[in-house]
């Protein structure tokens, strides 16, 4: 059985139709990326899946007992709210200190337990969010533009981490990203969204699809090569994780 099955989802705000008859599935262990221009309904789709938006039509089915790890788009913590990394990680799961440490290590940011969330760098913050999502060993990880505010190297390193952890734990990933060149080749399957599903398939298939080119232009076809090039030079950027 698929982990997540969405059928015929439509979302309307007043007269404005954001999603029209969208369907998708997420199978165990696969990385599915949703790409699409601004306003294409990517975030609405993810919010509908986690239940923050009620669809006007269609429904979302989860495999019974499915554990979800969610990494939000951006998280603004008010400076008046003091909270350590450890307390933040324990917010919705009662886990011990060692589990927190292990999750931080997996996410590539060990030794942050005692730090204040407000004092973290952008890259550290996103990795703490990832560690928090990993803490209950989820079956599927949902990421909403998880690398917003990171530079290109930082986000490439972040997505490599996601891939690396996937090979260890075998979770599935459903993510949204603007950064086509970074996510395209890290994905098993790409869904190109523009209010409806324009095209869908392996990254190579989607990148050469006319619908995709119409949305993003043919220039991004070469993005795949760009990412691979960066990937080859991973060793130069390995300090990124410890920033």
């Amino acid at each position: 059985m698929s982990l997540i099955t969405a059928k015929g989802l439509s979302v309307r705000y007043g007269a404005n139709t954001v999603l029209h008859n969208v369907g998708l599935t997420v199978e165990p262990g696969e990385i599915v990326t949703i790409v699409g221009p601004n306003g294409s309904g990517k975030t609405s789709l993810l919010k509908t899946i986690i239940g923050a938006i009620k669809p006007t039509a269609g429904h979302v089915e989860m495999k019974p007992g499915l554990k979800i790890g969610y990494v939000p788009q951006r998280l603004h913590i008010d400076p008046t709210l003091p909270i350590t990394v450890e307390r933040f990680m324990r917010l919705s799961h009662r886990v011990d200190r060692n589990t927190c440490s292990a999750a931080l290590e997996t996410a590539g940011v060990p030794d942050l337990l005692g730090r204040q969330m407000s004092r973290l760098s952008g890259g550290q913050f996103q990795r703490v969010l990832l560690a928090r999502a990993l803490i209950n060993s989820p079956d599927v990880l949902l990421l909403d533009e998880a690398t917003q505010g990171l530079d290109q190297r930082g986000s490439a390193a972040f997505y490599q981490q996601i891939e690396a952890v996937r090979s260890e734990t075998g979770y599935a990933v459903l993510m949204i990203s603007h950064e086509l060149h970074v996510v395209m080749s890290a994905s098993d399957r790409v869904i190109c969204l523009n209010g409806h599903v324009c095209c869908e398939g392996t990254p190579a298939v989607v990148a050469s699809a006319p619908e995709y080119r119409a949305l993003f232009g043919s220039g991004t076809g070469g993005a795949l090569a760009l990412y691979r090039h960066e990937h080859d030079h991973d060793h130069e950027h390995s300090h990124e994780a410890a920033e």
Partner: protein
Amino acid sequence: MLDDFMTRATLAGIGVAIAAAPLGCFVVWRRMAYFGDATAHAAILGVALSLTLEMSIFPGVMAVALIMALTVTLLAGRGYAMDTLLGVLAHSALAFGLVAVSFLSGVRIDLMAYLFGDILAVSRSDLLVIWGGAGLVVALIAWRWSALLTSTLNEELAYAADLDPKREQLILTLCLAVTVAVAIKVVGVLLIAAMLIIPAAAARSLARTPEAMALIAAVIGGVSAASGLRAAYLFDTPAGPSIVCVAAVFFALFSLLGWHSRRDA
């Protein structure tokens, strides 16, 4: 022991401080300061209502405060900026309340007692209501603590954890209404928001976790209530405002200390 009016007043002040501390932290974290003000100002309308119906002011004030808080929540995000909306509602509620009170014939009402509190006149039954209300607020917030904190940090995070941020917001709204109703006798409608915000803000620079901030705020609030009353007795100053003054001095002191230590670090 409860025969002494100063003892009763001190216990009343501490009771309000204990309820206001954890709630005040959420008011500060969620930037609801003006929301607290609007709810508190509406309370004067509740006073007029209770006096008209010749009943105890607690249920009347609580009902009006709750209606006000729910109205604000409903109207939020429908055309007007939040601060404009709250400015309109807070001050109109206060003005309508004051006008409504002036219509009341018969018993002459000491309006000052409701605007600035009348903590020295707290009776045993008032004390019971204050501690009952404070206990309810603390119990509700303690019960929902993790859920409230998650919703405060990020709504989507809450949805993904199977929580409903709207329900958590409603719980805070209910706590706010109860706190306003029990605090009106202690500090009066004009200074209720101060009891919510100042101890919490003063605790910020001393705390490393949300729990610590709520506890420290309760201590600061309690000490402010006790020493403010003492000062009011010694210098013959109004009690409610004296309590708020002490809390404000704590705020200034701890903020300077926090600023100093941050600069050193």
